């Protein structure tokens, strides 16, 4: 156990020299030999970029620049630290607001200041023990092999451990990632039968949402908020269920209430801005995007879409000069990023059109079109949607419809995205029946898939592969089709032997999906089967 202290590498992040010295002397007294220090967020990120740390002790409050949460976000987002690293957030206030703020990346532990040597030792001992206990689960998670992770957890659960409830909760989280909703539901029911526990009730709402039982999910999130008005994550999920039922005004109100409780959530402010703009509430949109731009300043999650949203809201509030100034910031913040050039162009087109400058708007639109060609087949669906909105606003209905058609086909099973398409059409007053189009396209894709599966069953591999290959070329952004095309090739090779050409094809499909959704739960199965056929992958 002493190896945990003497052999491991520690990083202390704090803007106060004295505090760093104090923590350092505590760690030294515990027998720690390898200690590095960082004075702010950027310093910390650059050190984590050069060296792997086992333990990071980070103060939440780091003065100007990134705060502790943003350091954690960037480190996890860029995979500078893995699941095996222990990240401890040191805070002065108590930690519940941060926990309730529904952050995307949570630290392994919070430590309230001031802490004694004994407490830090006892905390670290427990965290090391927990990591060691979960090491096989974490290994599987790092390989994104959710099935294996669940199996490992089941082995641990069979010993009726001390931390049974934590393990059950972890298991449901992995089940949700792996799309095993029924397994997660069974655990929630088991826990709730003993006592009404928030995480289990909450999880039940998430499963109901995933099963498209939106009204029931909505009831659960409402109850949770009623019981605990500070449970911010419940507002976020309530608004999701409202959007799914096309209650866009209600969804905006829900997020507005959440943002009032917890204004530091970047994604929440962005969503709120989007909804408000679509609902014609330009003032609320301006406020939300304004918050988002400020919050994102030092964040890895910063995106030009925030600036475009702020500029559009300002223009709608009759502040064209300010709006153009915001657009000017895009170049400075995101130099030479094609995505930034695109958002700047579409927002410029929107603002000029609103001001009656049709020629200027068309100019900007042309520059947006040119930028779009740079993305090739890999253009992110959000960009397609942004382009479609702009076409619609400038009266180019056909082009807007064509893009939406493509976006739907590429994302036929992503309900949240499809609802954004519906919302876009409504917002842009586009004469396009998105809901019917979605239904028809979905039916087409499902039919192709089913035919492919049937052909494989009959042993008609080549016919299945051709069918799915053609579909994948037509919808290169459709993850399901690409994965099924990959699987058809793999099954053929498993039966008849691997060929170089087939392997190359499978890799192409896999890379497409990885580029779109590296965390997709279906990827691991395909990749590990491919590895067996072509060990060099």
């Amino acid at each position: 156990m002493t190896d945990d202290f003497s052999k491991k590498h520690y990083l202390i992040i704090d803007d106060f020299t004295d505090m760093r010295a104090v923590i350092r002397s505590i760690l030294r007294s515990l027998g720690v030999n390898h200690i590095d220090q960082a004075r702010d967020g950027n310093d910390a990120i650059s050190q984590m970029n050069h060296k792997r740390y086992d333990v990071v002790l980070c103060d939440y409050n780091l003065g100007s620049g990134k705060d502790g949460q943003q350091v954690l976000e960037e480190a996890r987002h860029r995979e500078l630290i893995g699941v095996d690293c222990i990240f401890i957030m040191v805070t002065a206030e108590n930690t519940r607001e941060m926990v309730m703020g529904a952050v995307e990346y949570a630290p392994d532990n919070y430590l309230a200041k001031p802490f004694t040597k004994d407490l830090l030792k006892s905390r670290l001992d427990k965290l090391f023990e927990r990591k060691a206990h979960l090491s096989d689960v974490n290994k599987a998670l790092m390989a994104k092999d959710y099935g294996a992770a669940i199996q490992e957890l089941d082995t641990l659960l069979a010993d009726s451990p001390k931390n049974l409830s934590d393990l059950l909760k972890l298991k449901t989280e992995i089940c949700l990632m792996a799309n095993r909703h029924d397994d997660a539901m069974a655990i929630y029911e088991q826990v709730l039968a003993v006592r009404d526990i928030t995480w289990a009730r909450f999880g039940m709402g998430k499963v109901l949402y995933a099963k498209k039982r939106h009204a029931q999910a909505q009831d659960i999130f409402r109850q949770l908020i009623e019981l605990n008005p500070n449970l911010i994550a419940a507002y976020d999920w309530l608004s999701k269920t409202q959007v799914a039922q096309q209650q866009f005004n209600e969804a905006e109100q829900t997020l507005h209430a959440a943002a009032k409780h917890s204004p530091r959530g970047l994604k929440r402010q962005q969503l709120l801005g989007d909804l408000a703009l679509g609902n014609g509430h330009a003032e609320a949109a301006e406020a939300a995007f304004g918050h988002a731009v400020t919050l994102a300043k030092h964040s890895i999650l910063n995106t030009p879409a925030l600036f475009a949203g702020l500029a559009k809201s300002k223009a709608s509030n009759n502040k064209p000069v300010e709006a153009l100034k915001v657009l000017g910031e895009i170049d400075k913040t995101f130099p030479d990023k094609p995505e930034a050039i695109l958002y700047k162009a579409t927002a410029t087109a929107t603002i000029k059109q609103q001001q009656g400058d049709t020629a200027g708007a068309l100019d900007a639109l042309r520059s947006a079109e040119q930028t779009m060609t740079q993305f090739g087949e890999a253009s992110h669906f959000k960009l397609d949607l942004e382009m479609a909105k702009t076409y619609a606003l400038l009266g180019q209905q056909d082009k807007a419809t064509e893009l939406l058609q493509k976006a739907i086909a590429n994302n036929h099973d992503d309900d949240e995205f499809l609802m954004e398409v519906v919302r876009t059409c409504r917002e842009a007053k586009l004469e396009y029946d998105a809901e019917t189009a979605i239904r028809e396209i979905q039916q087409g894709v499902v039919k192709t898939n089913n035919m492919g599966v049937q052909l494989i069953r009959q042993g008609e591999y080549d016919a299945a592969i051709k069918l799915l290959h053609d579909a994948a070329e037509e919808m290169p952004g459709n993850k399901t089709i690409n994965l099924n095309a990959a699987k058809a090739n793999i099954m053929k090779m498993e039966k008849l032997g691997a060929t170089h050409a087939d392997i190359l094809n499978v890799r192409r499909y896999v890379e497409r999906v990885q580029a779109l959704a590296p965390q997709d739960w279906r990827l691991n199965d395909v990749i590990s089967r491919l590895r067996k056929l072509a060990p060099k992958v």
Partner: protein
Amino acid sequence: MDFSDILASSIHDIKNSLGLILNSLDDLIANPENHIANPRQASLLQHEAQRANSNLIQLLNLYKLGNEQLVVQIAEQNVDDFLSEVVADNQAVCNALNLSLTYACDPSLTGYFDAELIQSVLDSTIGNARRYAHTRILLSADNEAGYLVIRVEDDGSGFSGKLPLWLPDTSEPAQNAGNPARTRLGLYFASSIAQLHKTPERTGRVRLKNSHILSGGCFELWLP
């Protein structure tokens, strides 16, 4: 900037200072070559700094409670793990004051509570017990009548007044020999936090009595 932000940011600064004071005192006490401070005095300083710290947390929580901003996060906890941390956090000061601080509970005992809030209740209760204990403070936990009961006892002279005393069911404030006003605020805090723990049938409470296992005062948290 609203008042809760101002409060939070002031507390952040004060806690940084307290942290430095506490750790410097730790070094002073541990250093055999220290000839500046009498270790006993240093320990008393440490004790008061830690009390100031738990009072600050209590203050912030009371403020939030009054403004309905306090969020309760009840989860299943292993009580043994929980008490071991509470003891670890208070051990140094008790050692310095020549008080033994220990805990006793079944390693498999679990309970449903908000660990952070209950820890802050226990910290200030232990801080109080330090003033009255002669040689020992004992923490223990057990399952009784469908409640998780957590006790903090000392071997001092005990509480005065009518006992046992249930809070918040009584209007008669309990008196602890030294400083009644301070004790009352601490008890108000403890019983408010206890009441935030409830099931459809039961609500958390606090009880004061004397001579449970040790001879002195015994503070009990009853959590459903």
